[in-house]
């Protein structure tokens, strides 16, 4: 059977209009000065280093914190970096690959927002919501000021998740369930922080959808003792598919979130939540939310931030009028508009000082890290609300009401673009001050910025430099992480590194007694194991415990007397294995269900 592909003109137009948003990405150079611009290039650099060693799902980043290493991808959503790696393997350099992911995220966001709003209110609303989303000031800020790659990509997933779960309620079928699950998994793998912030909104949306459907089928006035069982059955029938979708999503992404949730407590979080990251310094003042400020600086304590937190005048006005018009006239899907208005208002509230008691009392609210990050929920909610302005009237409404025309959609779309046009700039430079992408540049960047210096909880004092950094800067390879300076004099301990990779090192060891220990320039984290191997056959004889030494929390291994080979290796913990198994099982189940559905369809067609 050959299905004809329909070209959606308004989607093409929305994508065409989003070219202005891509403009700065098409320039040569890169916005190196943007907040996290370097980070994402080096995240990809680190991921690629592991992939080149044959590690397909890296969890340990060996060059963080001057080469002491950090379990970065164990706790940080890797999907954006994985997509960047795909571009890199196809031939793009690190910087170009990161820029391509940004571009892809912008285009994908335009598409998913178009699709969801179109599903709710028709193509014109889809077009307007899509343009409003692409040009939401926070969206632009995320790309060109913050250079927040996973957050930008997660903005593409948010409408997709809502759309998938909406389908799972509105037209429950296997495809919708899998779609919802895959989208949710994509979001979780992209940014766990955004997923955690977004999940309560999703839960409320689903609750509203399910209740609306159930109450429509069985209005409260028709409830009786006899109707309780059918009501419960209907509730299960309507609520089951989205719940299943959520389980599929959690199952698919378990490879990441299960270890992240279990092992997050082993990294130092004071670096991310205290000091200059204290959320109390980052509440947004109303004038910042509504005012036309823009800047390339950072958020500072008080009202004089050098960066913009505006919601965007045009989408805000369109959304406000849409709400009023929807309340006055009977428009299709007004309940959705009301819900997104509530999300927008709630998100705006959580950004301001007025919500400080909630931030203090409710730890889930603090998943956002910074109050202004609730713009991530405000931007899609406001874009959808703005799009609802072009929702067609209910079929049963007064005949005088006409459906908003195409011209209105185009006019409003251009107006949205006009409103954000002055902000479509990036501070592009050809080369960063630390030099071209390399290990040496990474070390220099870490040194002057004090960024990418995450540590584990065994680290009491975060290093400011390291012998590995010295070697990298000198252009020499790091061939061992053994601290030879710690070997006691007198020939009681002999150590010779045989081989090493980003997640292991094998050293030949001679110990005169049982009190000798080998110290490595590596932070400890669960998953690191030390084994004693036979000197000749390299068979594992025993596992020896690792302890930490010094204020840096470096790994040290006490070796038994004699000649051995000591193997230090980063492995999967039980929870990581469980996560992998759960994801694999979910993938298998999804594939089997998909195949079964295909077979059933074919059988039915015959």
């Amino acid at each position: 059977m050959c299905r004809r592909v329909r070209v959606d003109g308004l989607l093409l137009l929305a994508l065409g209009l989003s070219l202005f948003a891509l403009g700065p990405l098409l320039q040569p150079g890169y916005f190196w000065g943007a907040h996290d611009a370097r980070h994402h290039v080096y995240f990809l650099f680190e991921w690629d280093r592991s992939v080149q060693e044959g590690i397909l799902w890296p969890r340990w980043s060996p060059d963080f914190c001057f080469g002491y290493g950090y379990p970065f991808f164990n706790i940080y959503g890797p999907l954006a970096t994985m997509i960047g790696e795909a571009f890199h393997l196809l031939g793009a350099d690190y910087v170009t690959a990161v820029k391509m992911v940004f571009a892809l995220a912008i285009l994908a966001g335009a598409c998913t927002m178009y699709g969801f709003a179109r599903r709710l209110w028709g193509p014109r609303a889809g077009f307007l919501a899509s343009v409003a989303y692409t040009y939401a000031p926070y969206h632009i800020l995320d790309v060109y000021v913050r250079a927040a790659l996973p957050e930008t990509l997660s903005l593409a997933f948010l409408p997709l998740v809502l759309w998938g779960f909406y389908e799972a309620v509105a037209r429950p079928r296997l495809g919708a369930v899998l779609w919802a699950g895959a989208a949710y998994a994509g979001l979780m793998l992209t940014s766990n922080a955004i997923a955690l912030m977004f999940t309560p909104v999703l839960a409320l949306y689903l609750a509203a959808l399910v209740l609306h459907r159930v109450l429509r089928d069985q209005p409260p006035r028709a409830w009786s003792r006899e109707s309780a069982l059918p009501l419960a059955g209907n509730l299960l029938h309507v609520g089951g598919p989205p719940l299943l979708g959520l389980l599929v999503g959690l199952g698919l992404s378990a490879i990441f979130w299960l270890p992240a949730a279990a092992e997050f407590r082993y990294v130092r979080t004071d670096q991310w939540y205290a000091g200059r990251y204290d959320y109390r310094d980052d509440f947004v003042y109303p004038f910042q939310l509504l005012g036309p400020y823009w800047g390339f600086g950072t958020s500072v304590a008080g009202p004089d931030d050098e960066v913009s937190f505006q919601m965007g005048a045009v989408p805000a006005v369109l959304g406000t009028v849409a709400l009023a018009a929807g309340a006055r006239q009977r428009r299709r899907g007004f309940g959705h508009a009301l819900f997104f208005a509530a999300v927008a208002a709630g998100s705006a509230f959580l950004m301001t000082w007025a919500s400080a008691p909630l931030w203090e009392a409710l730890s889930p609210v603090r998943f956002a890290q910074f109050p202004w990050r609730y713009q991530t929920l405000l931007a899609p909610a406001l874009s959808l609300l703005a799009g609802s302005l072009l929702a067609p009237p209910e079929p049963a409404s007064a005949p005088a009401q006409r459906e908003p025309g195409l011209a209105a959609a185009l006019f409003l779309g251009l107006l949205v673009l006009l409103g954000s046009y002055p902000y479509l700039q990036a501070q592009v430079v050809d080369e960063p001050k630390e030099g071209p992408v390399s290990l040496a540049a990474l070390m220099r960047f870490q040194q002057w910025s004090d960024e990418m210096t995450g540590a584990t909880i065994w680290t009491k004092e975060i290093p400011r430099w390291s012998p590995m950094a010295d070697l990298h800067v000198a252009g020499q390879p790091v061939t061992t992480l053994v601290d030879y300076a710690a070997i006691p004099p007198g020939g009681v301990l002999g150590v010779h590194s045989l081989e090493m990779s980003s997640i292991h090192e094998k050293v030949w060891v001679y110990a005169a007694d049982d009190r000798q220990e080998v110290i490595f320039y590596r932070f400890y984290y669960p998953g690191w194991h030390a084994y004693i191997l036979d000197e000749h056959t390299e068979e594992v004889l025993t596992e020896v415990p690792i302890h930490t030494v010094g204020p840096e929390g470096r790994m040290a291994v006490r070796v038994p007397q004699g000649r051995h080979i000591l193997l230090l290796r980063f492995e999967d913990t039980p929870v990581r294995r469980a996560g992998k198994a759960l994801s694999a099982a979910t993938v298998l189940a999804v594939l089997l269900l998909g195949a079964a559905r295909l077979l059933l369809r074919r059988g039915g067609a015959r």
Partner: protein
Amino acid sequence: MEAHLRMDANWLLVLLLAGFALAPLTYPGFVQAWQGFAPAYALQDLRAGLPLGFWGVAWPPHAGAEGPLPYLLSAAWMALGASPVAAVRWTWAVGLLLGALGAYAWLRERWGPMPALLGAVAYTYTPYHLNALYARGVAGEALALGLLPWLGWAAARPGWKGLLALALGLGALVLTVPGLAFLAAWPLAALVALQGRGRGRGWAWGMLLLGALAGAGSAWTLAHAGETVPFHALLAVREPLANPWTLGLIPVAAWFGGGAAWLAPAMEPQRREVGLWLGTSVLGALAAALWPGGLLPSWTPLSLTAWAVPPLVGVAAAAWPSLTRPEVAAGALALMVLAAQPTLKPPFTRLDPGPAPLAVWQEPGGGRLALLQQEVGRDAEGTLHLDLTWQAWGRVQGDYTLFVHLVGEDGRILAQDDAQPQGGKRLTSGWRSGEIVPDARTLPLSQGVSGPLRLAVGWYLPQTGERLPLVRASLPAEPDHRVWLHVP
């Protein structure tokens, strides 16, 4: 027509859409507008029982500037616990909201809810309106522009209630910006005369008489020649602080909309009224450009241009109902807010102005240099470090030199520093009115200096050595135009 304010959802919409205009007032500080901290100081003078005249907010004998009402209102906010700058901000907010709601009330009964919404939002975002707050920083006009639409509303009321409302409104305007009340009485009188048909000739003649009196008052205020607003400034697109007189897109669009409505056959019955507002608007702009002000600032007639915006926008929307379709109206409203964006990001300051400036010097042209804060410290080597915070009020024409004298117990000058601000980088003629300008000085002390030391500062013109007159000081002052700083 029934005379009461009918409630509908658009009232809320008017308030919500005014949010962008109000947003800068939520900054926890003050704007660095032309008037600087003068409104906050005038407010504190009022509370202290001092006359307002020093700040140019003179109530009798001058009729051209500001009356006491905005300051009395601000004093009420202070009585409720607001700081002086917050009280001024709240009064500005009241002015903005009054204007938006007044315009809606006025137009709603005349042209219906959607034209009224468009007119009210257009009025809120008219550049002259916003610039009164965020570029010029005037308390009087900010409140007066809130009162004007209510005068339009009152003029449309029949019977004694309307008369009473109009009298109260005019009275409030007289107590806010007396000169503007004289000017506003003209179109009001004409409006009542136009609408007074069937209500009795006495009412109309009474209003015409009021108009004639107002005209005489206007002529009197304009008789004192001053500078006009440059004609090109009305149309120029520049930074609001550099040109707060620009008409902007909204009034010009209102002219086109109102003009088209005037020509539209469907609006034939309203043609005189539309003509009145078109004429008021255009004449207001021309008056600002052509008639030299005096006691009345030359730009005050631009208030009339702003005042005419709501009826012109409203009549245009009423003439073409397709403009009131939600998606079209939303676009128009978004355009209005968008057009006003440059005026909605004024420079702020978090400086605490204190109850009064420490000292104010004034040049013959009227420009003033106000010392707002001073800090004196001494380091281990005995060097004195002096941090002074200045604000210019009005345009300062000369490039003055600041002298700092360290005076010993016996009155001898032990050390001194004479220099233009910031080592000559910020000449006083380049200070924008209202701008906060910090200036740091150091005075090395020679060894052996002991006993109580005193620091005196003042300004002089380097070409002549003539000192700038000191016109007000809360620090100890000398007749030779020096003030003594606090030295710890």
